[in-house]
């Protein structure tokens, strides 16, 4: 290792970066663009869900129930005069569900029977349907409570759940999505920055020129790694700043722990890019591999949006090779819960191992040979 040679290589890389500004765009423009888009675009909080309401025979009882629906921020009830037209609205995707109060609704209650409140939900988006069902149940329970209160009658709900939601009491989905997005975005940036750089040297024949010089292979790789690491950390800082100041995500844990973990993650991500690049030796194939192995796995297998605990055991094992998984866990913890050391240390260890693996394999596979 010769520091002067390394400095020369790093300078060369920076000059190359400045010449084709796409690397700068990747490091600084991408995180801002993507965070803006997703921070505002991705939300699992259903609000103003259109619900078709059919009341066969309006009475004071039915209007009390429908009133509860109208006051809820989650629903936007639309009154339909017949089940037929409500069904058509559901089929045309104008309404996500139908609430049907039959003509015998009030009579059944007067007679001391249990009247039924018909609910039809479009179940295609099962997650949304389930959330909707939960909201409706809440409205129904409120209605029961209100009725019992008004009538001075005892409440007939024996056991009620009292929720204590830690770390995110308002259940703002943005607070957990934005830290997760940073992990997804950094996976992309890390791999994109380095995926093509070694392959490009091979393809253009400049690798051959480099090999004719006295630089060693580890110097070449470090000369690639260091510039892109600096740029990647810049992008990371930008993302954290946006998360805290623009999206008002609380940063409960320590900034320096976050920075240290990010550096580890970035090493793993850049290492993966370098490995792709030196295995493919061809920008076209390297680019294709980068598209396949970065975004979708980070999006689907990292626990960013789909819960890892609920996946089948075999898939849970596969998620362990996705670096973003560890980073998502670290980020969500540092941002929302604070410095919980058991989580941070174990995940950091995993990231460290992955970084060592990628960089080690890249180094082992790169020889000063042309074939």
């Amino acid at each position, binding site marked *: 290792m010769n520091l002067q040679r390394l400095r020369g290589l790093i300078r060369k890389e920076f000059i190359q970066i400045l010449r084709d500004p796409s690397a700068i765009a990747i490091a600084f423009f991408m995180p801002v*663009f993507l965070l803006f*888009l*997703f921070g505002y675009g991705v939300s699992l909080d259903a609000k103003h869900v259109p619900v078709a309401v059919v009341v066969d025979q309006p009475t004071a009882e039915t209007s009390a129930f429908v009133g509860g629906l109208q006051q809820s921020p989650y629903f936007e009830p639309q009154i339909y005069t017949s089940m037929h037209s409500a069904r058509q609205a559901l089929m045309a995707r104008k309404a996500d569900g139908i609430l049907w109060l039959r003509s015998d609704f009030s009579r059944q209650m007067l007679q001391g029977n249990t009247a039924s409140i018909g609910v039809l939900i479009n179940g295609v988006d099962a997650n949304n349907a389930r959330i909707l069902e939960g909201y409706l*149940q809440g409205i129904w329970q409120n209605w029961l409570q209100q009725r019992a209160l008004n009538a001075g009658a005892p409440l007939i709900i024996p*056991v009620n*759940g009292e929720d204590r939601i*830690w770390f995110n009491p308002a259940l703002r989905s943005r607070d957990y999505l934005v830290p997760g997005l940073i992990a997804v975005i950094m996976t992309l940036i890390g791999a994109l920055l380095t995926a093509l750089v070694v392959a490009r040297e091979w393809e253009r024949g400049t690798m051959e020129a480099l090999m004719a010089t006295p630089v060693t292979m580890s110097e070449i790789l470090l000369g690639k790694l260091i510039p892109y690491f600096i740029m990647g950390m810049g992008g990371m800082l930008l993302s954290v700043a946006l998360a805290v100041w623009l999206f008002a995500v609380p940063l409960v844990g320590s900034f320096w722990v976050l920075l240290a973990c990010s550096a580890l993650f970035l090493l793993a991500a850049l290492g993966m890019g370098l490995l792709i690049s030196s295995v493919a030796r061809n920008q076209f194939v390297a680019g294709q591999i980068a598209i396949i192995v970065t*975004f979708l796995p980070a999006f689907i297998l990292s626990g960013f949006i789909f819960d890892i*605990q609920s996946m089948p055991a075999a898939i849970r094992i596969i998620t362990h090779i996705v670096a973003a998984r560890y980073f998502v866990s670290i980020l969500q913890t540092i941002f929302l819960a604070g410095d919980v050391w058991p989580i941070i240390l174990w995940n950091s260890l995993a990231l460290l191992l992955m970084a060592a693996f990628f960089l080690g394999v890249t180094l082992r596979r790169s020889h000063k040979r042309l074939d």
Partner: protein
Amino acid sequence: MPARIWALVIKEFLALLRDKKSRFVLIGPPLIQLLVFGYAATFDLSHIPYAVYNQDTGFASRELLGDFQGSPAFQQVATVENEGQIAPLIDDEKALLVLQIGPHFTRDLLLHRPAPVQVIINGRNSNTATLALNYVNTVLLSFDTRWAADHHWGRPPAQLVVRSWFNPNLLSRWFIVPGIVALLMLVVTLLVTGLSVAREREQGTFDQLLVTPMGPVEILVGKALPGLIIGALEGCFIALVAVFWFQVPFVGSILALLVGMALFLLAAVGIGLMISSLAVTQQQGLLGVFLFLVPAIILSGFATPIANMPELVQDLTYINPMRYFLVIVRGVFLEGDNMPMLWSQYWPLALIAIFSMSAAAWLFRHRMQ
């Protein structure tokens, strides 16, 4: 003219499938991803790890906890003896939630007084927390109904009777797997087309292509066909896997799906070629593919509903071909849609296809340096 185009198509296929690595990249990963994502991408919770802090010694709390133990959605991981043990369990994500039952639970219930159960839940992932609370509520509700009937609490005046259409058991796999058909089709088409012109440009062979007798339209068709063919083959295959492996019901018209696929592929190929001809280097091409692919997937309604997005972002999704194709795939798979019902999705897709293809053709001619 057809013979010339055909020659170009053959050349493109040779370039794509020439060596082992590129052949594998086109076929292996999409299939692996289909299987992995098909199982992984689910919002349904199972094995929710929970802990119990029961201060009550009566039979009512035992009965209630028995309900949780009997539910396949829940898995008890710990029993808490005192208040101080709760925080570490939640902090370290050993348990998603802790059920805390007060000391007078059974007594209160027998005295016809409402008794609360405290649910302490890790809100770090707010969606998982919301869903888990819904699951808890369902268990509590069925316990309530039984208890009220057994112990003469009186019947509730009205009850919700919920039915869901198209997906009676609310399996999120039925929602996600058809989405994966669209997802992987988009990825594969962009893989094939996104870098193809940029590569020729970087290697200088695009100039050679331009001085051949082929017109820009012929070049466009020759470049587009491989993407269309590979995309269509993989799309059909993935749809078959969705039906026969993942057992997602297919109740609509096959023709309606095929028409949708064709339009979607045309739009995706056009966008891929547009990106590719805008890029001077392959790195720029790759950046372009990502800058399109990532928003196209996240803002499509694949995982999070478009209706939850702010108005401005919702308007933005109208130029996203994936948005329309997702409605088509899910409509055909689950809702039994046929061609006339999907007309409102077809024409925007066709518009995007026409626009992107023409733009690509124009760029072929005008982006010479």
